[in-house]
């Protein structure tokens, strides 16, 4: 008995003094306990909290959010995880990562809920500032890049007199480097758009074969440089699907650019598109350098580039697959791959045949 009360005291001390906000409520969400961090983060005293509902500082997330939350904790009796915008006593808003777990008795009935919140306002602010910085810096970078681009175009067009072969060759190299910089800026802007959650999703009825043909005709010159042969295997009778064509174009483009870049000269790339259950699957298969096994879990990380390809291909931002994954997942699909170093890779992604859901926002992707 002595031992268990000492244990209890130990647990109480630990919870009282934990860094995260911890509350315990009864099954009707009436607050029975709040630790010191809870009073500090919400600004309400223990007396003000006890007997009240956590709506005292919460409840700002819209009906659907709470319906989903109650279903998970009360009906499914599972832990709910989410991000919430709360309001401190006095009106100052804060963002918290929250988890709420039901505590069940022997009969499986809910007796308490334990709510844990971590104030992530500062992390969110820093993240937003980082996104804004990338966006501002990228826009500023575009101005000098534009001037370089246009003057080189005029020189190459002979606007300032005829160039000899060597001069043209050097200038084309400068032009290509500048275009790469513009593409990098576009990729960074796309990443900052996706991360800021301001991206517009505008689905419209899409014929997947014609979309793929558009991507292919854009990439034809790049593929021709390495004598790459592209085989298209698009299943018949694929219905028209509501897709944001700009976003999906970007996914196909990223995957095909990668497979071209990492194929050996005269290699064959196969793009297969077929229905499977409620999804449309696209598979891009190459027989190129592949991804080392121990690096495979990092493939979709931002700025990741394979150690085996960095040596051979210095160009590349490590943003393509990160973007592709963000686009596919925000469209209700999945992206995955199989790969063997020295033999090649196949990247797959799925999109729901029911289409993408539209989302209003402020920005679209860069071409």
């Amino acid at each position, binding site marked *: 008995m002595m031992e268990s009360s000492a244990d209890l005291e130990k647990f109480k001390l630990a919870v009282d003094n934990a860094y995260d906000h911890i509350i315990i409520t009864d099954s009707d969400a009436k607050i029975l306990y709040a630790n010191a961090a809870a009073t500090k983060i919400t600004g309400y005293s223990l007396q003000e909290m006890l007997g009240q509902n956590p709506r005292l500082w919460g409840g700002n997330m819209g009906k659907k959010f709470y319906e989903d939350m109650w279903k998970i904790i009360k009906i499914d009796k599972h832990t709910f995880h989410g991000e919430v915008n709360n309001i401190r006593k006095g009106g100052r808003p804060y963002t918290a990562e929250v988890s709420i777990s039901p505590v069940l008795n022997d009969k499986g009935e809910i007796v308490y809920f334990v709510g844990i919140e971590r104030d992530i306002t500062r992390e969110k602010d820093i993240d937003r500032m980082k996104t804004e910085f990338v966006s501002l810096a990228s826009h500023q970078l575009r*101005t*000098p890049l*534009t*001037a370089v681009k246009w*003057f080189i175009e*005029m020189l190459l067009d002979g606007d300032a007199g005829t160039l000899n072969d060597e001069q043209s060759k050097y200038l084309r190299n400068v032009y290509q480097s500048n275009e790469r910089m513009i593409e990098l800026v576009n990729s960074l802007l796309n990443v900052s758009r996706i991360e800021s959650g301001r991206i517009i999703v505008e689905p419209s009825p899409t014929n997947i074969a014609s979309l793929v043909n558009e991507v292919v005709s854009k990439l034809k010159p790049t593929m021709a440089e390495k004598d790459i042969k592209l085989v298209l295997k698009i299943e018949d009778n694929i219905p028209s699907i509501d897709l944001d064509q700009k976003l999906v174009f970007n996914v196909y483009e990223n995957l095909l650019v990668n497979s071209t870049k990492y194929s050996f000269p005269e290699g064959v790339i196969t793009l297969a598109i077929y229905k499977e259950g409620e999804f449309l699957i696209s598979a891009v298969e190459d027989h190129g350098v592949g991804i080392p096994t121990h690096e495979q879990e990092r493939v979709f990380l931002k700025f990741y580039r394979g150690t085996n390809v960095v040596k051979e291909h210095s160009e590349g931002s490590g943003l393509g697959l990160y973007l592709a994954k963000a686009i596919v997942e925000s469209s209700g699909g999945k992206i995955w791959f199989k790969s063997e170093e020295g033999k090649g890779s196949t990247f797959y992604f799925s999109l729901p045949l029911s289409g993408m859901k539209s989302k209003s926002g402020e920005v*679209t992707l860069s071409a």
Partner: protein
Amino acid sequence: MKKILIIEDDSQTNSAYSSKLSANYFVTSAIEGKQGVSKAIKENPDLIILDIMLPGGLNGFDVLRELKHNSATSQIPVIVLTNLEEQEQAAKAGGAVGCLVKANTSIDEVENIIKKHLQ
């Protein structure tokens, strides 16, 4: 020779426009919004190229609004050429005939769209 007014604060970009266009057009330029509006009124150009991020108190949208609200300039076609991407809808809603992202547009495309709107 038709007259084009360029409202653009970056001197290199401005110089690129003049270099490309002055063979076929009379090119005049302004490096801030207010100057752009007064030049548009005074010089009555056939077309205006307008940047969005401009110094001097008036940004491109302010300029567009003033141009469209002034009977002396309201009929002049304005093409917005900016490096901000989110502007197309706002530019069109403000009365611009086109909106392009400079870094993603070749100087030949710029000349072609000008030609199209001067026909």
